[in-house]
């Protein structure tokens, strides 16, 4: 009885947030869904089209591949970076944090135009490659260029959860592992890496799902022939005004994302949205 009471009252503070979510997320989402399956009669035609029009699946595949590449690149760059952040003085850590946050503080447009200048034909990147004898490096207007720019934008979403996870790992555990017979490499793989997995999972999920929906960067840096899902969506809503088809596509992307999140929660154990795992301290301290 009394436990029921506590449970109800403990939900109270959530009411405003839930009401807001219902109003601005669930209702429009429901409407989108309804429209995607009505013509106006109930139909799955919009969904069938996605699989048969010969474009959508290609674009979805390309988007997933790009998002995966960005995620892996961000992890490979972000993990050592976050590790370094946990090892340096507070001052240096502040500087490293600012460096990684700069993409957040620059306007999307400025950032993308900067990348255009850097990556364009005859730009500094191409010249640099030519200087060492590698010609024909075309990045502007390619998926590779888009991937590079997206990685830069996504890096903070990888570094921040990793930093909070790696920073919470008790360094004594590594000493303990060394004392118990592990080389530094073994100590890392047996102790540090497993304990950082929550942060890795959180970072990977954030970067991957955000990358799935990227619009401005592929629109500006990529080519229309190699568009990503967000561009397809925009095209169908703003140019073709085919809201039903766009809704169906949106639903598919949403389902993919949800499946991934559920899977990550299974694999990563206690992954919270920001990926803080506080498992490294004994309970009674």
């Amino acid at each position: 009885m009394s436990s029921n009471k506590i449970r109800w009252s403990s939900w109270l503070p959530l009411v405003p947030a839930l009401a807001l979510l219902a109003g601005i997320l669930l209702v429009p989402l429901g409407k989108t869904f309804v429209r995607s399956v009505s013509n106006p009669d109930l139909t799955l035609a919009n969904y069938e089209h996605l699989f048969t029009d010969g474009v959508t699946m290609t674009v979805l595949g390309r988007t997933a591949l790009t998002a995966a590449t960005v995620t892996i690149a961000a992890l490979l760059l972000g993990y050592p970076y976050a590790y370094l952040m946990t090892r340096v003085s507070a001052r240096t850590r502040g500087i490293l944090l600012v460096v990684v946050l700069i993409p957040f503080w620059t306007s999307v447009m400025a950032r993308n135009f900067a990348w255009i200048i850097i990556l364009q034909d005859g730009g500094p990147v191409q010249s640099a490659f030519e200087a060492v004898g590698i010609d024909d490096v075309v990045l502007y207007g390619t998926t590779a260029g888009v991937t590079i720019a997206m990685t830069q934008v996504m890096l903070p979403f990888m570094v921040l959860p990793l930093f909070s996870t790696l920073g919470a790992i008790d360094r004594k555990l590594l000493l303990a592992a060394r004392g118990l017979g592990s080389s530094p490499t073994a100590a890392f793989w047996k102790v540090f890496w497993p304990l950082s997995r929550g942060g890795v999972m959180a970072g990977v999920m954030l970067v991957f799902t955000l990358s799935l929906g990227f619009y401005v960067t592929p629109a500006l840096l990529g080519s229309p022939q190699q568009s990503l899902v967000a561009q397809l969506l925009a095209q169908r809503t703003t140019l073709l005004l085919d809201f039903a088809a766009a809704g169906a596509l949106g639903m598919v992307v949403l389902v993919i994302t949800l499946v991934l999140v559920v899977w990550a929660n299974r694999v990563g154990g206690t992954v919270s949205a920001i990926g803080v795992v506080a498992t490294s301290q004994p309970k009674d301290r």
Partner: protein
Amino acid sequence: MTRQTTVEVTGSPRETKRGTEIRLEGVTKDYGLAAPAVDDISLTIEPGEFMTLLGPSGSGKTTTLNLIAGFETLTAGTISLDGADVSDVPPHRRNLGMLFQNYALFPHMTIAQNVAYPLRQRKVGKQEIARKVAEVLELVQLTGRDDTHPSKLSGGQQQRVALARAIVFEPKALLLDEPLGALDRNLRSALQTEIRRIHREVGSTFVFVTHDQEEAMNLADRIALFNNGRIEQVGTPQQLYAEPETLFTARFLGDSNVFELGQADLGGAVAWEGESWGVDPATVAAHPGVGKGSAIVVRPEDVEVAAGRDAVPVGANAVRAAVRDVEYMGSYRTLLLTIGDRGLFGRARVSALRGDYAIGDDVVVWWRPRAQRIVAA
């Protein structure tokens, strides 16, 4: 049944194995601060010995232990295990067990996996691992929790697991850095007993860091007393208590009445605030500094209290004092005293059967010259 298995545990190959000798020669660690953290320490820890490194906070105990473990590099000096110089050997090849204050159990592994860790690193066979893990968990009295994760255990239980993990691979020696520091008093004393028992059964060399003199006295075969990165004195707990070489040692272990003499000729008698006191040559510390600046140390239990000078036996050293306070401790009571003209703080422990003393009483305190100790100040 349980007895039977315990006997088997002690009968395992460990019993025949003796501990390792740990020798430190001129060991120095300088972090580039004002003074080296460890300053030219030489110490030989005998095979199978229970050595305690005792000293105040910041005196270099942990640094010394980390140097032995190999977690820190030496600035100067050498460390050898059984005569082999290991100064440049990385920690994972020194084969030493280590116990930390915060247990340092791997949170992502179960109890059994934690204990098996050092064996896995040594590529021990699966069955052998299972056997040894069960054996050592029984030794620390923690059976049946194999598949639990460390966070589900109490602090005392976690430290038992850590202990099991630290001895399961039969290390050359076990290094313990304030392993009981985070535990409450009762648990602490229970685990002290446990650690002594395990030391006896395993027969390996133990080096135990603590800043708690009582703990050191309880556990140690010998104590190395640290002060400012140097070893002040090494000896059995009894030696350090009864025959301190320096004022620091006398003050760190137990209560004492201290009479500073300054530069003194310790030949016959010494003077303190107008009193003339006899000196027993056997009580003068062998410390080279004694004489240049010395102090008389008398333990409270060696001090007698009399009503007046006429009650003091001939040949005793006496000084007048006033009773400042009385602490009742059951079978005895402790008089807190102000001694001499300048009101030096002192204490005397007297039997509860002896006469009553009230606060403010003027008394004379006395002791035999052989009960005092003259140390370097």
